């Protein structure tokens, strides 16, 4: 009976998770192509140091240590989860215990110690978020769902650890009562003495029930977590790895070149152009107006964001009270990608428009137009406040680049809309006419006369 329920639950969860994760993949792929191949040695090095090794977390020791507890506990608990799956499918109990002997004791003991540390970390995080109110964790962009999302996960963590200790604690008492059904785990670091202390006086039937409750609780939290992840900021536990792998390896100081306008510039300057003209009659659009104009790597960045706010905490604009928050930029890109993805999946033709008004039969990313864009999420004031100082890029523990989409949107504003801050117009004019950021009445080399 338990086996059937287990297989059913596991199957349903896998099905839903697969469907949700496929949607996320499709949403990421709504972005433009960008080449993030090459130099796989450097990319793997980043994965090992930054993703696995948490290198960038350790700029700030207190959250880094507690995060490490949860992270390592999470990794180790996967071993126990494999056993739970085997036990669940085949109706056995602690399948690995007889095979591994002393090693089993060591593994489960490690999981217990790590779970205890993770429990401490969970309380610390709940405290930092809700009572201490660390500034970056209570900024306005987190109001509502993001704040709840963070707390749901922490409470899930509490339930998970409770499940593990209930299961192991009851089990350690049952091993004395019924050694044939409950194979010896050896002396476990925590539950072998806490278990008897808490559950010692219980009847065997209630002990068995307690053990099952712990086991199912552990499993249900895990299954719930998998189903919940696609809706949550906690996707970073998976996406951090590909995100770090595909992060930009070129210099931070290099903005992506736009070869598509090189031909026009060259012909204007009378330089022979080896770049073909980009226009095919219609006026091209430059920069990013919507997620379709960002790269898939930008959207992957957005789905990887854990909303920790280390970027916004160091952003000079944000610190001085401007509206710009790099974290909000990433959250907005994700929200917009979700919205577009959902609308496209609906197939509703009210979202379809073509430029030449031909009849549309199916809604695709190419004919999608809901009358909205990223500019409905991100205001111009936010874009204009950025100093391109790269503090956000430096701060992100999972190598998200919030600067690139900001600059792409600035390009759209200036190149496609011919808009932007009016203050910049004299600068552009001076540069275009005199090759200098200021309109100057004297010669550029005049200073050398005064030396």
């Amino acid at each position, binding site marked *: 009976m338990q086996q059937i329920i287990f297989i059913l639950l596991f199957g349903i969860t896998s099905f839903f998770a697969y469907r949700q994760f496929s949607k996320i993949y499709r949403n990421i792929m709504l972005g433009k192509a960008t080449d993030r191949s090459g130099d796989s040695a450097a990319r793997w090095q980043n994965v090992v140091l930054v993703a696995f090794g948490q290198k960038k977390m350790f*700029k700030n020791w207190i959250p880094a240590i507690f995060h490490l507890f949860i992270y390592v506990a999470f990794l180790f608990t996967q071993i126990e989860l494999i056993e739970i799956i085997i036990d669940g499918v085949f109706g056995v109990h602690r399948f690995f215990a007889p095979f591994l002997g002393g090693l089993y004791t060591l593994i489960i003991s490690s999981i217990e110690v790590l779970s205890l540390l993770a429990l401490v970390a969970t309380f610390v995080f709940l405290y930092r978020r809700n009572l201490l109110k660390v500034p970056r964790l209570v900024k306005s962009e987190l109001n509502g769902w993001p704040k709840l999302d963070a707390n749901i996960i922490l409470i899930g963590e509490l339930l998970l650890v409770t499940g593990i200790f209930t299961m192991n604690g009851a089990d350690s008492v049952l091993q004395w009562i019924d050694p044939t059904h409950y194979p010896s785990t050896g002396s476990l670091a925590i539950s072998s003495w806490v278990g008897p202390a808490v559950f010692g006086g219980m009847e065997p039937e209630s002990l068995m029930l307690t053990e099952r409750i712990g086991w199912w609780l552990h499993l249900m939290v895990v299954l719930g977590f998998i189903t919940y992840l696609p809706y949550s900021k906690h996707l970073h536990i998976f996406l951090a790895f590909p995100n770090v792998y595909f992060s930009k390896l070129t*210099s931070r*100081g*290099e*903005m992506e*070149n*736009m070869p598509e*306008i*090189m031909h*026009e*510039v*060259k012909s*204007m300057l009378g*330089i022979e152009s080896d770049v073909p003209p980009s226009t095919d009659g219609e006026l091209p659009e*430059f*920069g990013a107006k919507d997620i379709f104009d960002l790269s898939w790597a930008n959207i992957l960045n957005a789905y990887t964001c854990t909303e920790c706010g280390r970027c916004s905490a*160091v952003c*000079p*604009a944000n*610190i*001085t*009270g*401007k*509206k710009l928050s790099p974290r909000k930029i990433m959250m907005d890109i994700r929200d917009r990608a979700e919205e577009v993805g959902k609308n496209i999946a609906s197939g509703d033709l009210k979202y379809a428009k073509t430029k030449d008004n031909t009849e549309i039969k199916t809604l695709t990313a190419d004919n999608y137009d809901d009358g909205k864009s990223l500019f409905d999420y991100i205001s111009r004031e936010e874009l*204009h*406040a*950025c*100093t*391109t*100082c*790269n*503090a956000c890029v*430096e701060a992100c523990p999972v190598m998200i680049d919030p600067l690139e989409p900001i600059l792409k949107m*600035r*390009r*759209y*504003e*200036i*190149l496609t809309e011919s808009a*932007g*801050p009016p*203050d*910049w117009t*004299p*600068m*552009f004019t001076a*540069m*275009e006419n005199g*090759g*200098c*950021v*200021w309109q100057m009445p*004297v*010669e*550029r*080399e005049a*200073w*050398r006369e*005064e*030396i």
Partner: protein
Amino acid sequence: MTVKTMAEVSASGIEVEVLFWVGCAGSFDARAQKVTKAFSQLLEKAGVSFAILGNEEMCTGDPARRAGNEFIFQMLALQNINTLNMYGVKKIVTACPHCFNTLKNEYPALGGNYEVVHHTQFLQGLLNDGRLKVEGGAFKGKKITYHDSCYLGRINGEYEAPRHLLADLEADLVEMKRCKTTGLCCGAGGAQMFKEDEPGDKRINIERAEEALSTDATIVAANCPFCITMITDGMKAKDKQDDVMVMDISEMILRSVK
């Protein structure tokens, strides 16, 4: 001294060791001109043969590109590259980290490949090679704080060369809390220099000036003409312009050179 242009030196068939890229601020801004002159004098003292592009130099295009105007950026960059390649320039030194970054990191994609160094790196080289010698003198034991510009520091990873120079001056370097990788921007980058701030509680340069003041240093050493403007303005707003000097490191070296 006379500073020669590339046109002048190439007409007389002289090959120079390095091209000094002066930049818009270094050419026209009264404060930054002082840095340009100081650095030129240092180059002469060290016996470095150099030239400038003079009137043939144009803005590298950095503020246009970061404002989003790729058209103007490419227009200026392609003209500059044309000029630089015409003179066969191989090595460039500049006192502006924005020019430094664009020449070094962005011109290659447009066909301009040069060895580009920032003037603090170049000066460090001159001291290491013994071509310049300094003695503490003017700055020995003085409390000095150093402001990392974003484009030399966080973006190009150069934190040490300027600090070595300050150590050579035997200055008492007091770091601000936000320094090196976490250094706070002065507020000028990304073409902010050329526009009013967006609405907020405070100007970024005031925030940075306050942080510099909290070190009790009497000199703020910098490496960027725009940082110098921004932090000087911040000091004025705090009415500290008479107590704290904002200097380019090359100016400090010039005062201490043997």
